[in-house]
């Protein structure tokens, strides 16, 4: 049996629209036979804290309209990517150091923190997306 196609996603944005799109790509790709790796860093990382619960700001009009509608929460989509599909969501170890976060501060479905070296080696033979 062939190895599944690989998709790597780097998320650094703290905007609602970009976090939402990253979550949608990760979740739909993960349940459609792809092996998905997500690297969360910079402004995105803080939104993966277990608490306090915080909503990322809208970047533009779409974000404002989206907030009014019954759209799946991006955190739920990342959790579903891990639970229902083949996805791993890695927090960036550099960003964790900068924000003084420990793995226990973050959502339980996240994988262990890794650095760019490891992520880029893993991403070498995959599609790559950035948000």
């Amino acid at each position, binding site marked *: 049996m062939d190895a599944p196609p690989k998709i790597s996603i780097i998320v650094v944005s703290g905007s609602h629209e970009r976090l939402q799109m990253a979550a949608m790509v990760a*979740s*739909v790709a993960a*349940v*459609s036979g792809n092996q998905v790796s997500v690297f969360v860093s910079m402004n995105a990382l803080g939104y993966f804290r277990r608490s306090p619960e915080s909503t990322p700001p809208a970047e533009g009009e779409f974000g404002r309209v989206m907030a009014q509608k*019954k*759209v*799946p929460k991006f955190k739920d989509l990342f959790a*579903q990517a891990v639970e*229902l599909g083949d996805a791993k969501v890695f927090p960036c170890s550099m960003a964790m150091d900068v924000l003084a976060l420990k793995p226990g501060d973050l959502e339980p479905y996240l994988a262990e923190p890794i650095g760019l070296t490891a992520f880029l080696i893993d991403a070498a033979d995959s599609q790559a997306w950035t948000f």
Partner: protein
Amino acid sequence: MAQKQVIDVRGAFCPGPLMELIANIKLAGVGDDLEVLSTDKGSATDIPAWVKKVGHQLVSSSEDAGVWHIVVRKAK
């Protein structure tokens, strides 16, 4: 005996209906039918595409007054 269940996700946006179907199909038995009720137009094409990609069976798909009824049979 094959079961039939209804997944009512009317009002939910993409990819909510697809994710609900997948969560439920994981728990269903092979041969069970799952009928998704969705008002999301994108899901009406996404769900059949997913079904075909992963190897389940699309039993039927129809639209009535803005609501899609998509019946999927768990094939494996």
